[in-house]
């Protein structure tokens, strides 16, 4: 009886496999971000190759694909993951190596290796598509005159609750920057006990006023509900609420923490070759610029910047809303994936212990 079931399951799954042959399955993060990828990448790719491109949503695609590879049951061809996950999964041999030399040159002729912004090709298993950032944003109908990251921690001058992500990542960096540490020194300081203590001490000053969030959709919601007056959040989500839905939210670029999202191909992907083509196609200059039309995440290629046009409403100029705009980059930190790969366990525990106190 057991044998029969096993046979049946195999038959079914191989049938499913056969049906999938002309399809490509991409896993991304859902919401407005995923929608922008469908418009900018999937539809033109499907039209060009005559294949079906399926989009699957996950909370954090890095997790399910790791589990799939571990279980030898990979159904995803391409996944959109964070840099730290890309590096980690690559180190663990869970990703296919992507030949960076096969990536097309920029529209202006710059070779891909030079065209991508620094760090975008840091992992040999991944190609970055966007730059996103964790930023402070506030409800400008309730607070005005916020100019620096230090103001976020100043509840005397700007009374009201603060929203923070319930994790060590980003909070510790922002705390140090608010405490006057220049962006360039943040991670080296965090390597030390004193640096970590200093960051937690800064967080202590607002601990009683914090509403902790976990999902990216929460910060704009917390602002809209009036639960907080200022919150950290992902710049694209805040932009969509502010420009897309007309909410009175303003982004403070000072002290932003930039990060990449990257395309990776899980080891054992059913349509590996097609996946390679998809990654090369989706990360060319024009496609990256197209995506920025739908959401305010910056293209990972320099040559895409001049191609970025108006928001889909047809009137908002996208360039100033990008985390990579000159204005936004004045005091910005780039997430150090290696630091977090090393310290995540310890700092998460410290952070959790600190929360409990």
């Amino acid at each position, binding site marked *: 009886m057991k044998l029969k079931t096993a046979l049946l399951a195999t038959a079914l799954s191989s049938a499913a496999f056969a049906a999938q042959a002309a399809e490509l399955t991409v896993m991304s993060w859902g919401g407005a971000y995923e929608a922008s990828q469908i418009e900018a990448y999937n539809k033109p790719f499907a039209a060009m190759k005559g294949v079906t491109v399926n989009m699957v949503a996950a909370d954090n695609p890095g997790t399910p694909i*790791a589990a799939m590879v571990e279980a030898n049951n990979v159904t995803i061809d391409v996944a959109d993951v964070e840099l730290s996950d890309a590096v980690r999964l690559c180190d*663990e041999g869970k990703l296919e190596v992507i030949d960076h030399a096969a990536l097309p040159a920029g529209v202006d002729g710059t070779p891909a290796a030079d065209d991508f912004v620094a760090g975008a090709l840091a992992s040999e298993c991944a190609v970055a598509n966007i730059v996103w950032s964790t930023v402070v944003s506030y409800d400008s109908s309730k607070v005005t005159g916020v100019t620096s990251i230090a103001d976020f921690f100043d509840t005397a001058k700007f009374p009201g609750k603060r929203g923070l992500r319930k994790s060590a990542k980003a909070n510790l960096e922002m705390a140090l920057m608010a405490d006057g540490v220049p962006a360039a020194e943040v991670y080296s300081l965090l390597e030390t006990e004193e640096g970590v203590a200093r960051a937690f001490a800064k967080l202590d000053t607002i601990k009683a006023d914090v*509403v902790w969030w976990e999902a990216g959709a929460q910060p704009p919601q917390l602002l809209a509900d009036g639960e907080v007056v200022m919150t950290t959040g992902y710049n694209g989500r805040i932009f969509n609420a502010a420009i897309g839905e007309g909410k009175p939210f303003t982004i403070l670029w000072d002290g932003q923490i930039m990060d990449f999202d990257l395309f990776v191909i899980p080891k054992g992907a059913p349509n590996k070759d097609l996946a390679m083509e998809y990654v090369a196609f989706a990360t060319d200059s024009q496609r990256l610029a197209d995506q920025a039309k739908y959401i305010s995440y910056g293209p990972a290629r320099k040559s895409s910047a001049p191609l970025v046009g108006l928001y889909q409403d047809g009137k908002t100029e996208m360039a100033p809303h990008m985390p990579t705009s000159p204005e936004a980059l004045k005091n910005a930190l780039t997430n150090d994936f290696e630091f977090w790969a090393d310290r995540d366990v310890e700092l998460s525990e410290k952070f959790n212990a600190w929360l409990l106190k």
Partner: protein
Amino acid sequence: MSDTILRTADGKPLKAALMRASAVARRRAFMLVLPLLAFVLITFVVPIGQMLSRSVTNDAFSANMPSVVAWFAANPEGTEPDEAAYAALVVDLVNAANARTIGTVATRINYDVSGTRSLFTSTGRKAKNMEAPFKDAVLAADEEWGDKVVWAAMRNASAAVTTTFYQAATDRKLTDEGVYAKAPEDLRVYLTLFWRTFVLSGAVTLLCLILGFPVAHLLARLPMRISSLLMILVLLPFWTSLLVRTTSWMVLLQEQGILNNMLVYLGILEDNGRLALMYNQTGTIIAMTHILLPFMILPLYSVMKTIPITYTRAARSLGATSWTTFRRIYVPQTIPGIGAGGILVFILAVGYYITPALVGGATGTLISNQIAFHMQDSLNWSLAAALAAMLLAAVLALYWVYDRLVGIDNMKLG
């Protein structure tokens, strides 16, 4: 002697005949439960076994660093790593880097010694160009390799079966001397969370009992027509998804929420003195009590339904006040329901994580949130398994205590 054996009419031994006769019935009974048995085995016993085994095994290091493992085997604990040890290390690092398993290895050591992940990955990249003497070459690449604790962690990880994750789950860390000791205060998380989980779940259970008892009593006493209507209200929460219910509580309880707005509107609260009913333990307790209340009411109701009113009347006629009657006659008879409801609610509460994650804030989250964190975010499944196993053990211990105090057969679920 054989004459004493009872025989059937045709001379076969009675026992054998009986066995044969009942064998068919037994086989049929077995066939009937077989699907469920298989189901339980596949979906429950096997995963729990896997969880338990995962909580004590991790071969990420031992499987990928064979030479170092061999050196540890050949040299007793306390031996200073010599040139041979470093040579073995370099061989393994080169192989691991080529095989792309170095990340796995690094992750494993990083569980014990924070900050060693990049030590492995970066040295792994350089290792293929290293030449003897390897000790100097490795230490030149990164002097952290000279740390005792790194070697202690590697020795520790060279066995696939390990207590590391239970040590971590009980807030114990590897010291520089290579032994486990209580973690520094700012790294202790889990025991506090376990304690909080049990206290909070206990509070939720108590609250469910206090709120559910009168309702169940009313349901059991009212005429069927009205009680079935009320029962629908009790069961209503079951018909909406957990997420919807939890977010409804958020709308109600948040600072700018309906409840606070109403209290401010009625002048009971100052506008700047709004109550923090959410993103703390209060929020967790309120939302979980609501969600788990039916699990208390249903067993209570089913027990109360079977208690005839004549007991109450008998007690009253014997001279007991209504309070004495309630305390000495009614409540003792509802104990099977209280026990079943209490255990059900408590165990469900201990395992809840979606609700505390959404409304619990910093102080209202529970151990299951940590388990989920290690399952989904940190991907340290072994630690998650160790925490889950401890939770399971605690729940089983609770059953045992309950059995001791009340008796498990004295539990009535419906």
